[in-house]
């Protein structure tokens, strides 16, 4: 009876209570930040004595915030494209290939996901110092691609594994060349996997802070590095405004993701 919600009796209310409190615990800090970003108190007093858009106008008035956001966006966009393309090619090999060490290779491709990021950050920092990529756009893209690629390979190869290869064979028998069959039949059929790969890759790069702290230079810093540097000095409400915009972006991407999932089901 423990797995029948209606027949739990008093236990039902205990469990619901814990769940409700946990949900609030997870949700409140996010709402709190959004509220503070409109509060007039410099010292982040809650509830705020008044409401203002000052922190947003400060944020948009400061060219360093804007340029770091633009840098982040450019890096994330390039990483997304490369990660999806490389993920696609690699997934075809991993899923369709029948070679020795296929599983080992798959595990290797996913290792950057489980490695502590700080180790990778320090290792790449040392490596890039030697080959002169530190503080460059290329350096950022390469290091974020290392982190994003596993997510891309995982989403695309999962989608490809669930796709029946007979469908591609059918397209070939219908007269399409193997490449044409892949482009016109297989890619549209696994598009949800490609789309997830793109979203995961973008977010991985856009939100990444540890590697970015090591990669950045005074002239090239991403938005998370700017937030980090600001936070190390003080807790200005301008960060609340920036965070709120980041939360908004998350909500939009989540909604987009949910829409794609839904579109896939219907």
């Amino acid at each position, binding site marked *: 009876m423990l797995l029948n919600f209606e027949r739990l009796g008093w236990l039902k209310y205990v469990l619901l209570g814990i769940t409700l409190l*946990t949900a609030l615990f*997870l949700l409140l800090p996010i709402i709190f930040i959004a509220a503070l970003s409109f509060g007039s108190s410099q010292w982040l007093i809650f509830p705020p004595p008044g409401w203002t858009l000052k922190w947003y106008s400060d944020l948009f008035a400061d060219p360093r915030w804007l340029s770091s956001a633009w840098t982040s966006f450019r890096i994330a966009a390039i990483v997304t494209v490369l990660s999806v393309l490389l993920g696609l*090619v690699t997934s*075809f090999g*991993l899923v369709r290939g029948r070679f020795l060490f296929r599983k080992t290779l798959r595990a290797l491709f996913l290792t950057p996901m489980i490695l502590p990021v*700080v180790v990778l950050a320090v290792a790449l920092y040392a490596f890039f110092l030697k080959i002169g990529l530190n503080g460059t756009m290329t350096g950022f893209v390469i290091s974020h691609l290392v982190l994003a690629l596993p997510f891309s390979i995982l989403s695309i190869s999962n989608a490809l594994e669930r796709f029946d290869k007979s469908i591609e064979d059918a397209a070939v028998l219908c007269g399409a060349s193997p490449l044409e069959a892949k482009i016109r039949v297989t890619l549209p059929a696994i598009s949800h996997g490609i789309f997830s790969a793109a979203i995961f890759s973008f977010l991985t790069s856009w*939100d990444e802070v540890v590697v970015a702290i090591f990669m950045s230079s005074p002239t090239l810093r991403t938005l998370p590095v700017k937030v980090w540097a600001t936070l190390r000095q003080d*807790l200005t409400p301008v960060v*609340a405004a920036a965070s709120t915009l980041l939360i908004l972006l998350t909500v939009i991407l989540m909604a987009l993701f949910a829409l794609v999932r839904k579109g896939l089901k219907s």
Partner: protein
Amino acid sequence: MPSVVALPEVATVKRREFRSTLPALLFLALFFVVPVISLLLRSVLEPQLGLQNYVELLGSSTYLKVFFNTFMVSAVVTIVSLTIGFPVAWTLAIMPSRWAAIVFAILLLSMWTNLLARTYAWMVLLQRTGLINKMLMGLGVIDKPLALVNNLTGVTIGMTYIMLPFIILPLYGTIRKIDPAILQAAALCGANRWQALTRVLLPLTVPGMAAGALMVFVMSLGYFVTPALLGGTSNMMLAELIAQFVQSLVNWGMGGAAALVLLVVTLTLYAVQLRFVGDESEGGR
């Protein structure tokens, strides 16, 4: 003559598919394997060949305290997340799906929200004049503000907040897979609620709990951002120590040695997970 054996399906042997994994393989070899290995090598090569870095790292009380902090915080975060996570996952698995969808949305929102934004929220909430202290004082629980930030308490609260979804989701998957008829059978066998919980439900979720707990523990060990922002300078964790060796002290030997310790512990725990509870973590996604 070769034997005639039934083939399950027409097997198309295509070794050339291997080639399409080469670009990614080359990329990771150059920008992942080589940098990590050369970092680790520096721990035995700098300043001169030998194990002196490890002797220093494991022999000094300053560094041992960092290891101790790291393990303690990770352990506490894991235990607290598991204690809260189990009832939540259990409820999610059986509650009406419309409500569950709302809780799921909150879980995902919190997971996907920028890490710095979340950590910033806790820096503000936990500070001396922050909402938590104000509320506790308002309720008369305390009369002086507690030091909740710039110490391990702050780190533990902030990390638990981050890790909770990582334990709830796999546990949810495990509980979902249990057939409710098993508990009906337990009831028919005469088990009361407490016996059904401790002798049937909990044992069946042990693999999921082990998988989730190991994952949270390992992730906590290597965490950098949250400890750096919510913790104090006197209570460092391992990831911060590695960064400090490299950034402020420019001591690559020690940095490499600390990285190797973290890497060995991480990979060992993952190997344990793959060996014993591998399938469970997959099911929980």
